[in-house]
């Protein structure tokens, strides 16, 4: 079921199995039939760990969504609340429990806090007078969730906002705890590098927690050689740019949540003869996207312009394979053909799905609006006219294009110009307020706080220096057979991934100057290994942790580096959340808007 997690260099299924075991143990602790009341936010992440069948095996008969008021009727012995430790949620639970008590039901109540117990919440339950009603209060430590064979996510949507806007480092604490869990399963990571305030904080906590576990030395041969912690605010530019890989575009256009994408259904109708145009499905088509699907694994990280060729080649191979049946003469040959049939059919339906998705995307990428938008983005990234009011942005505002699209562009201009001149900044802000409403003054304020919008100070614009030193823009990009990570944005090489690349070779010392220009400290720490656990220097594995989110295009770039022969290291990627420019900006807004395109 989750075999794809174990294909990679590091078997992440170990982590998933550990999580499943813990879940089973908790469920068994509440003997008898059960109903789970879900904090809705958690259902997605839990889906990556366990399906309903697992819960069912452990006598979970009903599932509800947490709502104020009384619980729906259910003939079960146990009611288990699966919740995040939030005070608002505690109040709802207290209400639920009180109404149950009033009805004199004889159910046992339990709480499972995800990812961690909270004294504060337990106090709140106590104040509400219901703490005593709970038989079990437990925590389910779910920090890093295995998302794919080389990908871990905390699925913490608001991590960036909390860290950089609200100075609430809860998610960093969980990140550090998650890294400790990883080290318990995969061995101590001997080298830690980092860049940024949050990275420093996480590293400090890890070293501190290591002391807490002092003595219980981990005797596992380390799987990871290096940990690289990167603050998202070291590279604010990358998520703002439109991702141009296949997976990146699916995420930009339709959004991928917890590994699933919801797509418009029209393109997926299987036309059967005789049925004609029956009623069209209205429900969006929900597709799971991960490396378990062979074809998807092959094309997900390609530049979208290279996807078509692969799809048509695949189509030929598959139809040729089906043609084989005519050549099958002997019984043995036919038998062999039939035995391959299921695999071929799966491949064919996979191909059909992705052809449809590619068509959907193509309709958008070939549109003028998409092209214009991309052109402006690329102008900014190459440093063209970043200090003036941009006419395209102006026109978009005048036509009231979606606000997030505008914010992405304006922020990008600001980042590429190391801040905007007062006049330009005020002009944009005023235009936005007048067009989209004055309430967005709070959102603009948030963007300024997070450093995405900035007033240019007297300091020189250092973006060109950074761009040139780190080779962030490559003119001769090869989208079909890439030789550099810049293919993921058709020219722009994500800064974050460049930092990772340079760290391996020739090392950060070569870019000291640039590192100083980027926010936050950079550092290196070493963790002592027990003697005898040192491993040879070949086949290095790096765990790279993005604090504040990572985009699919960045992941694609890192996978590209993993595959490069002279790359010398393979990457496992961890993040607080998988983001794109839209979801990211959205998380910083104080009022929500529809996504662009």
């Amino acid at each position, binding site marked *: 079921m989750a075999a794809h997690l174990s294909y990679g260099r590091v078997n992440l299924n170990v982590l998933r199995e550990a999580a499943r075991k813990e879940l089973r143990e908790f469920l068994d602790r509440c003997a008898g039939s059960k109903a789970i009341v879900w904090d809705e936010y958690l259902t997605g992440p839990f889906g990556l760990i366990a399906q309903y069948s697992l819960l069912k095996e452990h006598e979970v008969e009903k599932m509800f969504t947490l709502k104020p008021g009384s619980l729906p009727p259910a003939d079960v012995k146990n009611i288990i609340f699966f919740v995040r430790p939030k005070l608002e949620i505690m109040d709802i639970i207290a209400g639920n429990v009180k109404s149950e008590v009033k009805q004199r039901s004889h159910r046992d109540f339990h709480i499972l806090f995800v990812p961690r117990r909270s004294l*504060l919440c337990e106090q709140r339950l106590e104040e509400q007078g219901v703490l005593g009603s709970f038989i079990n209060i437990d925590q389910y430590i779910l920090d890093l969730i295995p998302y794919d064979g080389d990908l871990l996510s905390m699925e913490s949507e608001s991590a960036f906002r909390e860290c950089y806007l609200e100075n609430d480092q*809860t998610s960093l604490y969980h990140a550090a705890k998650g890294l400790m869990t990883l080290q318990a399963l995969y061995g101590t990571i001997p080298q830690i590098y980092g860049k940024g305030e949050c990275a420093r904080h996480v590293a400090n906590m890890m070293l501190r927690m290591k002391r807490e576990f002092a003595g219980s030395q981990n005797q596992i041969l380390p799987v990871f050689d290096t940990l690289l912690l990167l603050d998202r605010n070291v590279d604010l530019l990358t998520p703002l740019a439109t991702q141009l890989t296949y997976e990146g575009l699916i995420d930009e256009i339709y959004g991928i949540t917890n590994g699933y994408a919801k797509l418009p259904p029209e393109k997926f109708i299987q036309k059967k003869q005789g049925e004609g145009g029956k009623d069209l499905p209205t429900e969006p088509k929900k597709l799971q996207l991960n490396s378990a699907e062979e074809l998807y694994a092959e094309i997900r990280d390609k530049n979208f312009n290279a996807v078509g060729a692969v799809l048509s080649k695949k189509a030929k191979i598959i139809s040729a394979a089906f043609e084989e049946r005519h050549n099958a003469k002997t019984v043995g040959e036919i038998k062999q053909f039939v035995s391959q049939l299921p695999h071929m059919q799966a491949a064919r339906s996979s191909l059909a799905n992705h052809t449809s998705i590619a068509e959907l995307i193509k309709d958008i990428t070939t549109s003028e609006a998409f092209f214009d938008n991309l052109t402006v983005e690329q102008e900014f990234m190459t440093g063209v006219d970043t200090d003036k009011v941009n006419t395209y942005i102006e*026109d978009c505002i005048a036509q009231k294009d979606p606000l997030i699209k505008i914010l992405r562009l304006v922020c990008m201009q600001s980042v590429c110009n190391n801040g905007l001149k007062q006049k330009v900044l005020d002009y944009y802000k005023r235009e936005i307020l*007048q067009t989209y409403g004055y309430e967005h*003054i709070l959102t603009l304020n948030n963007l300024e706080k997070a450093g995405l919008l900035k007033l240019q100070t007297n300091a020189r614009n250092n973006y060109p220096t950074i761009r040139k030193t780190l080779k962030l823009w490559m003119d001769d990009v090869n989208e079909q057979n890439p030789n550099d990570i810049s293919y993921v944005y058709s020219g722009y090489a994500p800064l974050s991934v460049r930092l990772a690349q340079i760290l391996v070779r020739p090392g950060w010392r070569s870019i000291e100057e640039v590192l100083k220009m980027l926010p936050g400290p950079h550092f290196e720490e070493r963790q002592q290994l027990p003697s005898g656990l040192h491993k040879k220097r070949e086949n290095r594995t790096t765990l790279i942790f993005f604090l504040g989110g990572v985009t699919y295009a960045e992941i694609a770039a890192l996978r590209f580096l993993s595959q490069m022969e002279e790359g010398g290291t393979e990457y496992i990627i961890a993040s607080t959340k998988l983001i794109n420019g839209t979801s990211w900006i959205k998380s910083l807004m104080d009022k929500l808007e529809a996504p662009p395109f």
Partner: protein
Amino acid sequence: LLQQNWNWNSLLFSRKTDLYEMGWNIGGLRDCLIAAAPYGGPIALLKGSQRSERSHSARPVLEMYTSSGVPLANFPWKSGIVVDIGWTVSDYLLCIQENGTVLIYDILGNYCRHFNMGSESQNSVTEAKVFHSAYRTGVAILTKAYRFSVVTNIDDQKIWRLPDVPGLQTSGLSCWTVISQDRQTKLVLASGRNIYVLDNDSCTSVTVPGLDPDVSSYFHMSASFNYKYLALYTNTGCIWMGTSNLKVPLKYMILKCSYYSCIMVFKISSRCRRPRSQQPSVVLMWDRLLLVAGKNNENDELYLVPELDGVRIIGSKSHEFLHEVPATCEEIFKIASMAPGALLLEAHKEYKKESQKADEYLREIKDQNLLPTAVEQCIEAAGFECEPETQKMLLRAASFGKSFLSNFSPEKFVTMCRELRVLNAVRDYTVGMPLTYVQFSQLTVQVLIDRLVFRRLYPLAIEICKHLKIREFQGVSHVLKHWACFKVQQKDPDEDIAHAINQKLGDTAGISYSEIAAKAYECGRPELAIMLLDFEPQSGEQVPLLLKMKRGQLALNKAIESGDTDLVYTVVMYLKNEMNRRDFFLTLRKHPVALSLYRQFCKHQEQDTLKDLYNQEDDHQELANFYVQESYQEKVEVRVAELQKAVDEYSKARNEFAAKATEEQIKLLKFQRKLQDETDKPYVDHSLHDTVYNLLLEGSHRHAEQLYKDFKIPDKRYWWLKISALAEKNDWEELEKFSKSKKSPIGYLAFVEVFSISEQFNYLIILSFLMSLREVEQAADIAIERKNENDLNLVLSRCNQSTDRSLVERLNKARSGANKK
């Protein structure tokens, strides 16, 4: 030689091992309450406590000894009259008093706590029994009114009053016992010829199967060590034995049960008045045989302690262990035994004598392929022997045999050597814990270590942990922690103790300094507690104790250090309740992390506090944002006031842009309200853009124009806005008028775009429109692209043949192309 202390008794061998010459110096065990803990535990004596001595003025004395009679503690008993004493599973002594109070002492005679058996028992407890089950100890009492109360677990002290037994008042109670099995506690009692089983809510009369019909009363009853079996001693001199549910007589079960499981002890004291003999005697029973142990010639009272695998016999001079000879030992040591183990032992003896016979014996075993069995037998037998010399002999034989085996796992041998060494160490006279291997296996190392720790035998406990290679945090650290907890109770200065503890404990894994600190705090040494807490690496452990000690500020520092925001929140909430507001805010100010967390809390929970907080900090920017946010929760009238406050705050924050923008917002809001009142259409909460757009749709060009001027909307945007609105409205007339009013700042293609997205999509209209603007070239481009003959003709007709020559040519070319199609 080794068999000399064996007794052959019809079916099996039993043997008596001398454990210790008792080190105590007591006159005898008569007239005192005595209790010995199982698993080689300590012995307690309460001398001169009851009945006969009651009139004496001398106080009774409570004495505690190890199993070897080494004194552990003694003190005069100052409390009430004790009915019975007994040990808990974790070596605490329970003294049950007549008034129902149960006092608990530790093994060194320190008073720990007490509890009461309920008001019912007030001054009327006549009998009491202490009983054990896995990990817990219970107490059952009988009152003068023949009522029973039971506490099944002295740690949670829930008292169960059992139902009354009918007829007890008249026929009296002859004997009773407790059966504690599978979390259920039952009482079995005999009254006259009746046997009753009593549990929490019922009393059942039971007919005992297979019993002599002549029986008219029972003298005594006893349950086996594990409560699986029960024995009744009847007035006819019979002993009935059976399962403890009184359903199956044991004789049917002989083959099923293991010997160990049903050891029962009767102590038939003079109270029972055996018919013939006044001599008290001791009866010991296995499942199928009965032993009358020791013709005690000396007039000495004996005390029997049932154990898992035998019985300890404690006299005033000696301490012996009587048990059945385990099958393995029997096979090896039985005279002329041919068991593989016996042969191996013999072989080894011959080998030491350098005799060739060694080879003969060895061959004999090997020929039957029994060498592994032989080795295992020797290892196993070593475990059952108490004498180190015998152990060594057997183990050497095993080792000898092992050297002829290539793939025999050494684990068993090594473990046995290690564990025997430990057992020998604790059996030592000075320690006095006569544990057998079987008992040790059941007891587990952890419990053994705990017991040593209770006796403050820290060095021995640590050595054992190291020797058995127990994981640090279960072993050495655990012992060290107890040592440290003991240490903090000493009178030395705080610094010395803290230093000594840190010196010894260092960073040992699994050491919880906070537990030690908690102990220090309990002993009234908060300063020492704080010093110790400083060594604690886990903040999660430091913080709660610091809060308990009312060191909020320190707790806050530690919480922040840990990075655990939940901890920080916990401390912040604590401080909030403990301090006055001013000090609270000042404290937060010193800790930015705590401050921002508290802000988040307020944002969701206490909006008003948030405002105070910003005020306190003079954070005008945030205060302004706060008012903006607030304003959206209000009606329009109030909203303006809130926004005005925001304007003020933005100005104070020198955020001129925001101040101006908010002023504009107020202006717009007022305008919208007026409009709304006038037109009865919703305008409030629309952006400026949308307001103008709606006005244009409505045809209120005057108002739109006014907003355009008042709010200085840039021309470009206004043009876009206006043409889109007009297009949507299909107001071509107005559009044309507008387009001609002045030169379009956005070009004329924009018009085309607007048309193409409007519903009235018609190229003819677009083209004529463009041409009316004299934008012929653009019109031509569109027509050429569309390749529609009509369109092309229309454009051509408007072209000036002379001036737009190239254009005309292109159009003609396109037209001929379109024709061909």
